[in-house]
């Protein structure tokens, strides 16, 4: 990982923490790509979809972004979160494993393949309250802005923001229990 990636990502995340949505989206896209290849090298387990772990990692990055010290390097922090989520995903499959970075692929590969437990998107949204579901779907799937979602759903922007945040937290918690 080059130093310029580090500098760029750290800059984007700093802007995001200051409230810049555009920088945040750019940051998250880069992180998704980076984490996705990190995870694909390490998951040889048929029962785990790397994309699920990518999504869990993005949610954790978001909900725990205050645990990044803004003067510290961002890469080690991102990989630490991805590793935590990977270990968590393996553990949920019933394997109690002490996993070093090197051993992950081998350990995962040893186990017999299980039926693909792909998280059903519709079901994840179903876990939300109807209000949260409408807001999250309007913004994520239909691409509405906060203002557009507020207009479409006939609510205040503040209410939309609250539902969105609670919805994201609920999805993250739901992933952990699955």
């Amino acid at each position, binding site marked *: 990982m080059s130093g310029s990636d580090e500098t760029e990502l750290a800059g984007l995340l700093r802007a*995001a*923490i200051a*409230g*810049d*949505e*555009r920088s*945040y*989206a750019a940051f*998250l*896209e880069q992180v*998704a790509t980076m984490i996705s290849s990190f995870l694909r090298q390490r998951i040889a387990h048929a029962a785990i979809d790397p*994309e699920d772990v*990518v*999504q869990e990692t*993005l*949610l*954790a990055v*978001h*909900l*725990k*972004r*205050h*645990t*990044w*010290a*803004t003067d*510290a390097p961002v890469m*080690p*922090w991102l990989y*630490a*979160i991805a590793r*935590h989520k990977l270990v968590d995903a393996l553990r949920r499959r019933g394997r109690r494993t002490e996993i070093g970075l090197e051993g992950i692929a081998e350990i995962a590969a040893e186990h017999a393949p299980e039926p693909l437990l792909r998280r059903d*998107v519709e079901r*994840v*949204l179903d876990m939300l309250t109807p209000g949260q579901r409408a807001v*999250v779907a309007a*913004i*994520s*799937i239909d*691409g509405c*802005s*906060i203002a557009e979602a507020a207009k479409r759903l006939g609510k205040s922007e503040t209410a939309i*923001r609250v539902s*969105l*945040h609670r*919805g*994201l937290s609920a999805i993250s918690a739901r992933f*952990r229990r699955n």
Partner: protein
Amino acid sequence: MDTNELIRAIAADARRPAMPMRRAWQIAVLAAVLLAASAFLVMLGPRHDLGEALRTIRFPFKFVVTSSLAVSALVLLRRLSRPTGAALDRLPLLLLAPALLALAIAAELLVVPPSQWMVRMIGTNSLFCLTFIPLIGIAPLATFLATLRYGAPSRPAIAGAVAGLLAGAVSGSFYALHCADDSPLFLAVWYTAAIAILAALGAMIAPRIAQW
């Protein structure tokens, strides 16, 4: 919902303010000290010969031990509350307080006749100490565990144990103002046992509440 759709939803939530961890710890420490101070003043209060005690060596030394434990536990705990805090290379910091205490014990054994060793160790207030240090430390422990929950500890059991050590050090600092047993021999047995209770509680509770 594919990953790009999720990113859209997350980015839209960017303006949600998130208090930095550093600030969260400042508030937690302040709250813990205030809570411990109020519990101490309500339940015990300082000993009556405080002025005289301050002119001895043993009484002030109790605070050297408790505050060195507090500082090293806080340094560790702040690291352990972040995802990057999994490395345990700083754990030896926790040896600082026991090392100071060991030196004091060596000195105590040199200046006190052997017939007095057990007397000093057993002290007069041992059950009191075992009761009140955990009791005063409960609210600080809850505060630190809540802060761990707000953070993202990779090793919640260890982080919880260190939270218990910090709560015990804060509580012990107040309790020491009341306690008339000033020998390092007493500290080594009873303060240690009382603080260990809080550390065990922290280690048990943190993994349950600080999942992320």
